[in-house]
């Protein structure tokens, strides 16, 4: 399974090579892997439904990290959506993106990479593996929504989607760690086999639910999904309807068998799910853009799925899995139809579209099929799922179940209403609107739509297939009444509910002008909430930065020194002890060297010229180097002398741009005295702490002797310092030269970047960053 996932990512990286020759061929190549994945998964269906199929690859065994994958009923259902719809939608792209559309290259690679990440997500059997793929899908979504980033709308939508889902993702990661530690394992199948309980698990579940809610666009995080509709339609169809937004639902479905009996689980899931279903459905009735209408419909359906898959009863789970498949199979073709209409007429506004029923009869029939499934009409899969959903909560009885039953009935009324609105808006002939001119869509556009819509019909009639899948998923729940998915359960409350939903929906659609006006007036706007939150965070950041980063070097130094005096200084005074046998010096040469250093330091404080100060700092450095020589550390001394020399040179080079004197006038005493006090305290504490620390060792260091013993044979070095640098502690060395590399790049950018800003007098100000001259300069 790892190989399949990796193959997706590798081919995605290589795909631009193909699309350089032919954009259409790139999509053709991209569609092959998802199709292969679908066939592979279907071939494995037997063992998958019969307990599951596992594969584990060690990743970092010493850290306990593994890449574990498992194909079971739920994963299989998701693979059908991810790989099956993926292949169909990528084929649709051949027709959607013209042969020379600039975004085609990016979209082909992005869609395939996303398919790989999503496949990894649904197959993962390890919490951390799941997390990695979860974030990869967020990144793929960001890239696909943002596209080239030329449009402000695209950038805003992409950033919003990324911020919201990554916020949830990070919360979820915390939850995963808590859950994994509480259970003692990160294997999902092992956790579900023996679900842990306790306060830690409560916190973990809440955090995980935040992740699921953000990803699946639940209230109040939902606005990112309608905003993401700026993406090309195939991207919306795949990521924002069929697969990625189901990741949250999938996670809830995955964990529900182990935790659905806990109130901390089912209360938020049912409450948020129901609220989302109602709000999404209501908002869909106000939209005039067909794509945004579908987006709010998706929000609503995701809430419905959340309720079904999180409720934790067998029938609800059956209904949930059926609806999961049904939603993918009716929402994807609806999006594809919107893309086709957009392509054929150049608009998606249902106020200007008219008479497409006769102009695009094939698409109209396919849409009618998908819409019927969405509204819950027999004999489509949506009907089977919805019927079972009503049964799940009607049969349960009790306040909780009846509340949910009424809630999903209301939601279904809204669903039927916006389904009718979509069909009417896209295809009906509207009085007073001229028939929209149409140019015929290619078969690449209509074919995939038909495949999806027909699959919804086929699975509705062939419900035993779905039943086998759903029963395998629902197996962990106790089977009390032997309920199974079926097209006809006989007359009963669920059938009445279905009829009420359809009838109510049609009635609402009848009163559309009044409903639309009402739906426009929404008391709270979650999008405004998001914008206020982001702007507020920005303001807080500016305020904090403004207070802490004041831009005064003495200010920063004072903070550092005061903290040093307060923390390590206090610790040394309280806990340390002055070494009793500290000699004043142990080699005669130390005395003159120390004197030189002290005198230079005193003179440095009095220096008024920068050049003098730099030279005196050099003297101090050489003096310290001399002390190293006296103490028998030639390597250290050599490095010290060389670095000191180089710093001197660099200082002198920089001094050319600075005034010769520090300040023209002596600063007043109220500035100088506190500075002097802080500096003195800092110096005294540094010296004192150094002495206290040097006396704190009570036993000879064990590592030194080992290093000296091992250096010749293990590192092949007689010089133990060198052995430490290039062998024992070689990783540190590599890290340090990395730091040097960054520092050099920083110096070059800073010095050379300011150059073009200063030419303002002569011509328009050019920002240094990013101009061709600047880049050339920085690169040498």
């Amino acid at each position, binding site marked *: 399974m790892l190989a399949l996932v990796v193959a997706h990512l590798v081919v995605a990286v290589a795909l631009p090579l193909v699309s350089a020759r032919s954009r259409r061929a790139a999509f053709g190549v991209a569609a092959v892997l998802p199709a292969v994945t679908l066939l592979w998964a279907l071939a494995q269906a037997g063992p998958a439904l019969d307990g599951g199929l596992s594969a584990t690859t060690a990743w970092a065994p010493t850290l306990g990290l593994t890449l574990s994958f498992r194909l079971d009923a739920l994963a299989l259902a998701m693979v059908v959506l991810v790989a099956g719809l993926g292949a169909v939608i990528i084929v649709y792209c051949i027709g959607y993106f013209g042969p020379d559309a600039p975004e085609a290259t990016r979209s082909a690679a992005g869609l395939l990479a996303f398919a790989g990440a999503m496949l990894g997500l649904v197959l993962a059997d390890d919490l951390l593996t799941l997390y990695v793929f979860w974030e990869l899908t967020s990144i793929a979504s960001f890239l696909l929504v943002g596209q080239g980033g030329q449009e402000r709308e695209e950038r805003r939508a992409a950033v919003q989607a990324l911020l919201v889902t990554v916020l949830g993702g990070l919360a979820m990661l915390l939850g995963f760690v808590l859950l994994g530690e509480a259970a003692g394992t990160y294997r999902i199948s092992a956790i579900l086999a023996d679900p842990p309980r306790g306060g830690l698990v409560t916190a973990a579940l809440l955090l995980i639910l935040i992740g699921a809610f953000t990803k699946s666009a639940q209230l109040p995080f939902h606005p990112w999904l309608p905003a993401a509709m700026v993406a090309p339609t195939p991207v919306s169809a795949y990521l924002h309807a069929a697969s990625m937004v189901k990741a949250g639902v999938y996670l809830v479905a995955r964990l529900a068998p182990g935790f659905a009996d806990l109130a901390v689980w089912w209360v938020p899931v049912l409450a948020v799910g129901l609220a989302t279903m109602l709000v999404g459905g209501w908002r869909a009735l106000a939209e005039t853009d067909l794509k945004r209408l579908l987006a709010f419909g998706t929000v609503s359906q995701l809430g419905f799925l959340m309720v079904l898959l999180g409720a934790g009863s067998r029938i609800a789970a059956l209904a949930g899995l059926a609806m999961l498949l049904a939603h993918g199979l009716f929402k994807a073709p609806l999006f594809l139809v919107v893309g086709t209409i957009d392509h054929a007429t150049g608009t998606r506004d249902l106020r200007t579209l008219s008479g497409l029923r006769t102009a695009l009869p094939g698409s109209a029939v396919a849409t009618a099929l998908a819409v019927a499934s969405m509204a819950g009409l027999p004999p489509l899969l949506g009907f089977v799922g919805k019927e079972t959903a009503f049964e799940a909560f009607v049969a349960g009885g009790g306040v909780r179940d009846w509340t949910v039953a009424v809630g999903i009935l209301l939601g279904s009324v809204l669903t039927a209403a916006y389904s009718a609105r979509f069909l009417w808006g896209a295809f009906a002939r509207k009085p007073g609107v001229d028939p929209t001119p149409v140019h015929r869509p290619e078969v690449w556009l209509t074919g995939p739509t038909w495949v999806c819509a027909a699959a919804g019909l086929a699975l509705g009639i062939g419900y035993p297939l779905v039943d086998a899948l759903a029963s395998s998923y629902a197996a962990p729940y106790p089977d009390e009444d032997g309920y199974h998915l079926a097209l006809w359960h006989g007359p009963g409350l669920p059938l009445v509910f279905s009829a009420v939903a359809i009838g109510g929906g049609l009635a609402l659609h009848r009163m559309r002008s009044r409903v639309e006006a009402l739906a426009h007036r929404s008391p709270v706007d979650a999008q405004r909430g998001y914008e206020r939150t982001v702007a507020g965070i920005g303001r807080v950041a500016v305020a904090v930065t403004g207070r802490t980063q004041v831009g005064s070097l003495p200010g920063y130094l004072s903070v550092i020194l005061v903290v040093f005096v307060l923390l390590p200084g206090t610790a040394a005074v309280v806990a340390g002890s002055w070494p009793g046998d500290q000699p004043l010096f142990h080699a005669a040469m130390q005395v003159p060297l120390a004197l030189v250093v002290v005198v230079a330091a005193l003179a440095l404080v009095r220096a008024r010229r920068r050049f003098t100060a730099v030279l005196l700092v050099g003297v101090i450095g050489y003096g310290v180097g001399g002390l190293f020589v006296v103490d028998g550390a030639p390597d250290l001394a050599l490095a010290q002398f060389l670095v000191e020399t*180089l710093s001197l040179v660099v200082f002198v080079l920089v001094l050319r741009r600075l005034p010769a004197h520090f300040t023209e006038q002596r600063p007043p005493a109220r500035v100088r005295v506190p500075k002097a006090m802080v500096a003195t305290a800092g110096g005294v504490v540094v010296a004192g702490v150094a002495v206290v620390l040097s006396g704190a060792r009570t036993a000879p260091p064990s590592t030194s002797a080992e290093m000296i013993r091992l250096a010749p044979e293990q590192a*092949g070095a007689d010089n133990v310092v*060198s052995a430490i640098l290039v*062998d024992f502690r070689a990783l540190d060395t*590599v890290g340090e030269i990395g730091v040097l590399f960054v520092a*050099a*790049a920083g110096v070059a950018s800073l010095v050379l970047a300011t*150059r073009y800003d200063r030419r303002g007098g002569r011509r328009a100000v050019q920002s240094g960053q990013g101009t061709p001259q600047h880049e050339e*300069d920085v690169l040498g």
Partner: protein
Amino acid sequence: MSITGNDRDGAAPRRGTAERALLLELTTRALFPTVLVFSGYLLLVGHYGPGGGFAAGLVAGLAFVLRYIDGSSGDLRAVVRVRPPVVIGTGLTVAVLTALAPVAWGAPVLSSAKLAAELPLLGSVELQTSVFLDCGVYLLIVGVVLDLLRSLGAGIERDLRDAGEGP
């Protein structure tokens, strides 16, 4: 490359003859190659005595500083054809590749081995593979010094000239 007037006529900018310090220039001529050879020695001797890639790189860098200060070669582009960032990158690449290479032989990252060979004339020769890491460090440090001379040396000089303050 650059947009200053001096560069446009092809040659690297030279300072006026009045400023040239002949004694320093002559000394540099003699010292420059010697110091470079010495830095090579420090690089190789690091395993057995004071030295190593860091010190050797600084010594070589200081040789270039000398070349820059004596003023005979303008902004050093005439001395070193390679662009400093390339030297830095090469050094980092060599170091990282040395770190990763043992993996190909199934050993942990950053482990080193001793290579011994009998060469004609030289007799038995030993080579610790960690010397390659040291070479990476050496190149990187030389590159950093060259880059500093380029940005803080020649760059500031050019700014001064542009501002009409400099020599």
